[in-house]
């Protein structure tokens, strides 16, 4: 890699040992990628310094388990602990491991909660904004068009590139932590104009309107695209933020889609020609009724028992409109005995939900609005859960595999109906 004088100085330790370690990691990473240089980034979203009890214990046995130890040894991949200075730029922490108020309901131990509180204080002290969400763009960090970012969280990355037109690769924990200290990330992939054009045309031949349909289309596209860049055209309604959120999250789960274009909708696709740049589509792939049915069946292949114990909403973290919708569907009703409904969002959005009475309406019906985490990230389920109902293709992709439970996929209404009756009755309409 070709380094600027400032980058060389950082690598030589002129800005302290933490920035030296961070730069060393970023150079190794850039060389692995085959990048030629760095790009300056000031908007960084990651999960710095957080540790599970396993990691903490491991590092305790190997030199120390403090926040600084974990940050140095895990985040910066350093063999020694270095003092952790305040970060520069607009840095935020993405989703965390537990709700700061409902952690007991989530089955977390007082030790784990105390540890989480300590980590959070360290983040704040180091200048990292505690947004604690997979949707930073709904909670106070919305990048600008063309802004170079270093973001983790595949659903946020695909949103950042596709919907906003800002530029980020799918970064990892170690690269975002290093970028928080250095303001640098390899100038590779989605930072470069020529890598942002579409590769394949997805021709949608069946109407795609609902949030559920956008999620299914995303799941189909991720599976057929893997890491390619789809250009989506055809029978599409105008997607709002929620539809983009579910579509992108699904495409980034079944495959590795980090950017998509919707012709006439997303900022870098005013026309089909612009979306593809100077290139021709590698292939055209059709999405029709057969494909739609197949995706629906695949997303429901983990479900066998129609008795549903648990309904999880809010993957990616719910927007205020989604919480309002859940409150409307639950108002004046009661969730069936022995069943649970948890809806996940960010603290910022929950404060608005509290203000509007949505949180209370959901609680009065027997559900809980939780923040910071989700069942997959926090590995937390209501006790005894065997069968879950989900309205997120992304969550269906992960939760049954991680927690060894059955899952049904459907619309938000299907899921809320399952919470009220205790039975799954969703179908493809």
């Amino acid at each position, binding site marked *: 890699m070709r380094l600027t004088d400032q980058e060389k100085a950082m690598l030589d330790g002129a800005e302290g040992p933490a920035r030296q370690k961070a730069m060393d990691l970023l150079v190794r*990473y850039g060389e692995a990628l*085959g990048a030629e240089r760095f790009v300056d980034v000031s908007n960084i979203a990651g999960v710095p310094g957080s540790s599970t009890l396993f990691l903490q214990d491991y590092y305790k046995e190997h030199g120390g388990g403090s926040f600084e130890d974990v940050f140095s040894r895990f985040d910066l991949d350093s063999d020694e602990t270095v003092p952790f200075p305040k970060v520069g730029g607009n840095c935020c922490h993405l989703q965390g491991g537990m709700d700061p108020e409902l952690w007991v309901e989530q089955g977390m131990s007082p030790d784990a909660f105390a540890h989480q509180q300590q980590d959070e204080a360290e983040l704040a002290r180091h200048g990292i904004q505690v947004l604690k969400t997979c949707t930073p763009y709904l909670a106070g960090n919305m990048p600008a068009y063309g802004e170079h970012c270093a973001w983790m969280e595949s659903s946020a990355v695909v949103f950042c590139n596709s919907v906003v037109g800002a530029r980020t690769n799918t970064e990892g924990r170690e*690269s975002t932590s290093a970028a928080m200290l250095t303001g640098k990330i390899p100038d590779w992939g989605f930072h470069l104009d020529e890598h942002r054009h579409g590769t394949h045309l997805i021709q949608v031949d069946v109407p795609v309107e609902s949030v559920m349909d956008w999620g299914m289309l995303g799941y189909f596209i991720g599976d057929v695209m893997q890491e390619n860049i789809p250009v989506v055209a055809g029978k599409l309604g105008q997607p709002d933020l929620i539809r983009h959120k579910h579509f992108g999250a699904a495409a980034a789960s079944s495959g590795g889609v980090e950017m998509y274009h919707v012709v006439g909708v997303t900022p870098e696709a005013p026309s089909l020609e612009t979306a593809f740049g100077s290139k021709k589509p590698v292939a055209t792939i059709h999405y029709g009724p057969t494909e739609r049915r197949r995706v629906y069946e695949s997303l429901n292949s983990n479900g066998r028992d129609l008795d549903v114990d648990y309904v999880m909403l809010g993957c990616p973290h719910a927007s205020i409109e989604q919480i309002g919708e859940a409150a409307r569907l639950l108002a004046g009703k009661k969730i069936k005995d022995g069943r649970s409904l948890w809806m996940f969002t960010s603290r910022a959005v929950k404060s608005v939900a509290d203000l509007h009475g949505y949180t209370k309406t959901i609680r009065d019906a027997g559900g809980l609005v939780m923040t910071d985490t989700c069942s997959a990230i926090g590995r937390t389920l209501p006790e005894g859960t065997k069968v879950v109902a989900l309205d997120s293709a992304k969550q269906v992709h*992960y939760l049954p595999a991680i927690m060894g439970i059955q899952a049904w996929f459907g619309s938000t209404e299907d899921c809320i109906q399952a919470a009220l009756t205790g039975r799954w009755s969703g179908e493809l309409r």
Partner: protein
Amino acid sequence: MSPIAPAKIILRGRKVVGGCAEGEALVTRDTISGWGGIDPMTGTVIETHHELRGVCFKDKVLVFPGAKGSSGWSAAFHLARIAGFAPKAMIFKVMTTKIALGAVVMRAPSVTDLDQDPLTAIETGDWVKVDGDRGIVEITKKA
């Protein structure tokens, strides 16, 4: 060549992470998810529809198309390294930020851009030597 010496196949590519390691190959045609796709504490693939579901990659030379899924890829494989369940080396086809960072923090000798398709040249059970610095893969076919 001596008639009893096993045939060796050499593939040439480019360094991702330096160092040398050898071991038994574990080959898959499916891309691999890190976070949510593997259990780092047992070194096992857990993804529902994956052809390696339930298979352990500890100490193997992992041969696969590349990474997909969550941005927790590097952290999941980093954790597998710390827990003692990481693969010894990696050979893959498609470069992504997930796999580049994952290979770096796993500190596993890794190569890509090979002159033959590693998914055809290498089969599970072959003995594979990866020279990361020189970008060379030496395959001894299983008996």
